[in-house]
């Protein structure tokens, strides 16, 4: 069933009408735009002005500045340093490699606290970092004005991102849900040397090293040189950041399918 897209054949003999009919339509639009303009005079008016907030153009459903709609915009990030657990997931998920984890005061010397520093010269505002954040401490706000006079100012340190957080701009309310049956960290036991690197670097401290029985060597067999301990992951506390996988020197941790 094809739709007929054939034009109506209207031959108007009067050349004045050829020009007048489209111009009448344009004139109607001109008068309408005098009463209700379609544009916002940007530097003097802003979308986040209270004037535009919760204003919907009824005839078109045009969500000009309605609260929740405008709040979903992905702008500059806001970081709550207090709840950040230094899990690295934002830096891992960044397609542009613009996030660098830098040390901030507050951690112990053995386990320094690291928070994201974002280079807005590279950022593409895709929002993968805030979607990946398991604690909800890195979110995106509606702030969109970022002009700077020098290039180094485009690098936002964690403290600067925390200032954005303290301004209490509308946060992007959309939270991305994780899949129900998430894959978990699994161990390839024969490869493990019990080095404790995974338990040391785990941001949530969900890995504990448990003793494994040392086998008795048969005559002529040489036991591997290792510490007789193995990591056990508490799946309910794990945020699936994969830090343990990347620090494992023997590549014995991997993503396993759900049991």
């Amino acid at each position, binding site marked *: 069933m094809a739709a007929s897209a054939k034009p109506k054949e209207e031959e108007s003999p009067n050349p004045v009408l050829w020009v007048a009919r489209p111009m009448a*339509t344009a004139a109607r639009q001109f008068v309408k735009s005098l009463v209700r303009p379609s544009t916002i005079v940007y530097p003097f008016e802003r979308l986040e002005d209270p004037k535009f907030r919760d204003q919907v153009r009824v005839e078109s459903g045009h969500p000009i500045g309605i609260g929740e709609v405008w709040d979903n915009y992905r702008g500059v990030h806001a970081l709550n340093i207090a709840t950040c657990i230094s899990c690295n997931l934002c830096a*891992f998920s960044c397609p542009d490699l613009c996030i660098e984890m830098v040390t901030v005061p507050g951690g112990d010397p053995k386990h320094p606290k690291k928070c994201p520093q974002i280079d807005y010269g590279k950022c593409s505002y895709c929002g993968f970092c805030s979607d990946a954040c398991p604690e909800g401490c890195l979110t995106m706000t509606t702030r969109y004005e970022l002009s700077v006079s020098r290039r180094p100012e485009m690098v936002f340190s964690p403290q600067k991102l925390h200032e954005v957080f303290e301004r209490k701009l509308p946060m992007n309310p959309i939270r991305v849900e994780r899949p129900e049956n998430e894959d978990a960290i699994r161990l390839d036991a024969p490869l493990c040397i019990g080095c404790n690197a995974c338990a040391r670097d785990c941001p949530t401290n969900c890995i504990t090293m448990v003793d494994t029985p040392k086998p008795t060597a048969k005559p002529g067999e040489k036991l591997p040189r290792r510490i007789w301990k193995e990591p056990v992951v508490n799946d309910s506390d794990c945020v699936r950041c994969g830090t343990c996988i990347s620090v494992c020197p023997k*590549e014995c941790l991997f993503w396993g399918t759900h049991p």
Partner: protein
Amino acid sequence: MWINMGPQHPMTHGLWNLRVKIDGEIVRDIDPEMGYLHRGIEKISEDRHYNEIITLMDRTCYVAGIAWEHLYIQAAEKALHVVPPERTLYLRVLVEEMQRLASHIMWYAAFVQDLGLMSPFLYGMRDRDLLLDHFQSFTGGRLTYEYMRVGGVRNDLPPGTTDRIRKTMDWLMDRFAEYDRLCLGSQIFRTRCDDLGVLKAKDCVTYGVTGPMLRAAGVKRDLRKDRPYAAYDRLEFDIALADTADVTARYLVRMEEMRQSVRIIRQVVDWLDHHPGPVMAANVPRWLGAPYAPIGHEGYLLKRHYSKGVGLSAIEEPHGEATAYVVNEGGEHPYRVKFRSPVFVNLSAAKSYLVGYHVADIPPIMGSVDVCVGEVDR
């Protein structure tokens, strides 16, 4: 005499060069040169996680980003053996049809500007902004949406969105009537565009031209009907057709397609109101977003023997038929990603619909092709 139209020319709508051999005012030969906007997206994709490629897809075609996300995600899901939930399929149809509307309205604005009409250009840009506002309300971006994910979409619609979309659709239908009054109602427009840039059905099939150009030649071909994907087999719509194969016919086909898109969107929002559900598949492999492997050990995921697969998908993009091919060799990155761009083919056939016309006819004819150089060069 050979002259260059491009790479910087208002007619080109992007970066490409049209070499024209002229004899007085008559075009005798055509040589389109592409490649000025090549960014190597296919090669970069081989070094990225499956979800990270979505950011590249929005930059492939800057007026139809969601359509390309949809194309890639379908192929990637087949390659990774992930089945999305049903509500996701309808959400994808909703955003793809809204993107088709936005893309066609953008085409209308650019096309009439090629003809020298300024007022319809402003109306087109204004009406497209309504759709971008809706995209912003639930994806967060106005041009680069990053909405699709392997296994579903990023988020569900916020409450109240479907009602606002219904209002906008009613409003847009009135605007389409206005567009027709401005263009078809003007005898000057008809005199300018009738019997211009004719590409008959036989030549279209020979060159592989697809999309509105093919349907303007009277060929009943639409992948949404012929090989239904997502939820298109459960929706009612018609294929827009015209038979004169000239610039006016392409205008008529695109206007009719926009009306059909509105029809599809109305059905989809009705379905979405009554069928709540999850928008993300329950079992998505976690290693899709796994951290980078330790330096020097990039192949360690390969040793784990994750399932392999090959994905091929084809969709009816606003410009024509696009194809994606994703090979999953078990690693965290795809082994190979390949795209087929419809505009590349439509541009390559330029010789057959430009030769014989005047030089002044080139802008309207190329405007009716709907060029998007971002996806030509990728």
